[in-house]
């Protein structure tokens, strides 16, 4: 973004047409945004200014890939297709990636690409259209970025159970029913695997109940603390909103089409980034509110049984019309 303004400032027409004050105001707004983001973040990487020369070319490509991995890790099974495929405006791409990089740093590690998004549960409240900053996930409803240390940690629970293969369909039915009765929903189901999401409050009870349905051979439970990630994203969103408001004011003050277009481009970029963050917050909120339980009915190595039972008497095998009529 700064390179964009540097380029803009170098234009000879700028000084002559008297646009300098407008650009200065825009620059101040951007600096305010940068300061706000840096001030809220804890890590040193967060505070890295996107305006540092040489930072973009080196990080942009790599960050793009890391960003996707981070998303996959964080939003497993729930990421929305719209969100993932949302294009960024070309002029602002580097800056967008930089923001993505910051999220990725707090987000953690890489992971597998997420599966198709699940159908939204009927039991869920209509969170999708609400403003992310006005609402918080389950355990931290009234929390804000200023008192984040006081709030309950925001945790994402995941469990994977390997269950012995016996009466699989019946057991899968039971797991699905249990999830629905607990206020959860089905994410995926096939012949041997079922993935359900259960309200986090009922996660432990549900896990115990599911474990009794079959013979659990292997159990893997993971908990990811996303408290910092969540509030960082909220803060960034808040800052972006402030920047958007300023751009909207600037748009009203534009003196000609060229100025208006320049501000409009930035406004679009900020809006896009806001939508992106809102989407991520929504997914994160969903992951916090609903824990994921995967039950897999699969042995580590299969003991095959021949489905056709054969008594070991040769003459029995020779019965039949084919032998009888063979002359």
């Amino acid at each position: 973004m700064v390179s964009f303004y540097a380029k803009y400032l170098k234009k000879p027409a700028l000084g002559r047409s008297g646009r300098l004050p407008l650009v200065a105001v825009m620059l101040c707004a951007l600096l305010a945004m940068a300061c706000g983001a840096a001030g809220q973040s804890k890590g040193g990487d967060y505070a890295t200014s996107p305006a540092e020369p040489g930072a973009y070319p080196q990080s942009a490509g790599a960050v793009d890939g890391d960003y996707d991995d981070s998303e996959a890790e964080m939003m497993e099974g729930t990421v929305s297709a719209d969100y993932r495929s949302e294009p960024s405006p070309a002029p602002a791409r580097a800056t967008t990636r930089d923001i993505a990089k910051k999220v990725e740093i707090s987000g953690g590690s890489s992971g597998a690409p997420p599966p198709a998004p699940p159908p939204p549960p009927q039991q869920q409240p209509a969170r999708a259209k609400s403003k992310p900053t006005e609402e918080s996930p389950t355990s931290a409803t009234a929390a804000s970025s200023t008192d984040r240390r006081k709030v309950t940690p925001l945790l994402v629970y995941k469990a994977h159970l390997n269950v012995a293969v016996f009466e699989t369909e019946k057991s899968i039915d039971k797991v699905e029913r249990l999830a629905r009765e607990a206020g959860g929903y089905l994410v995926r189901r096939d012949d041997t695997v079922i993935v359900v999401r259960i309200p986090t409050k009922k996660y432990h009870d549900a896990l115990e109940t599911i474990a009794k349905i079959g013979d659990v051979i292997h159990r893997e439970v993971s908990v990811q603390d996303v408290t910092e990630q969540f509030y960082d994203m909220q803060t960034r969103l808040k800052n972006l909103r402030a920047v958007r408001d300023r751009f909207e004011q600037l748009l009203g003050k534009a003196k000609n089409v060229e100025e208006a277009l320049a501000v409009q481009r930035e406004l679009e970029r900020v809006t896009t980034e806001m939508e992106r963050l809102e989407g991520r917050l929504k997914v994160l909120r969903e992951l916090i509110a609903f824990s994921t339980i995967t039950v897999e009915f699969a042995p580590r190595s299969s003991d095959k049984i021949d489905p056709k039972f054969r008594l070991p008497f040769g003459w029995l095998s020779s019965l039949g019309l084919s032998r009888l009529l063979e002359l």
Partner: protein
Amino acid sequence: MRFNQLFCAFVVATATAACGQSFTAATPPEFVEIENDYDDFDYRAASADGLVFAVREIEHDPEGSRAFWARAIENRMRDQGGYALIDTKDVKTAQGIDGTQLRFGHDEEGRPHLYYVTLFVTDDTIYIHEAGGTKELMEQHAAQVDWAVKHFWIK
């Protein structure tokens, strides 16, 4: 009539077992003993519709308690075979030998099967009595399965 059938089956089983084995397996009515073409088994019998009994006689070396061997079987079946442990029962033969019966379940091509492994351990020998088939058959022949275990005899 039923008693006579059972008695005859028992006598036949006893007579056919006199060939060097250290046990006598009881073959229930509606089952036939099958010539042992397999090295793994020392006795096998089957019903016409596919329920099979088998006995393995294994040298008890190294020595271990019945609980140890039961656990070893359980782990093998659950961890490597993907079998579900449904129940574990203590059994006692008519001879007064204590044993442990592990009841496993396993699906194959969508059909549930049951597999019972009954373990008898003496100082010299481990006896593995197996019974298996589809769940439907095993439930249908439950009394005969219990009878075969009850009348397993160690010489």
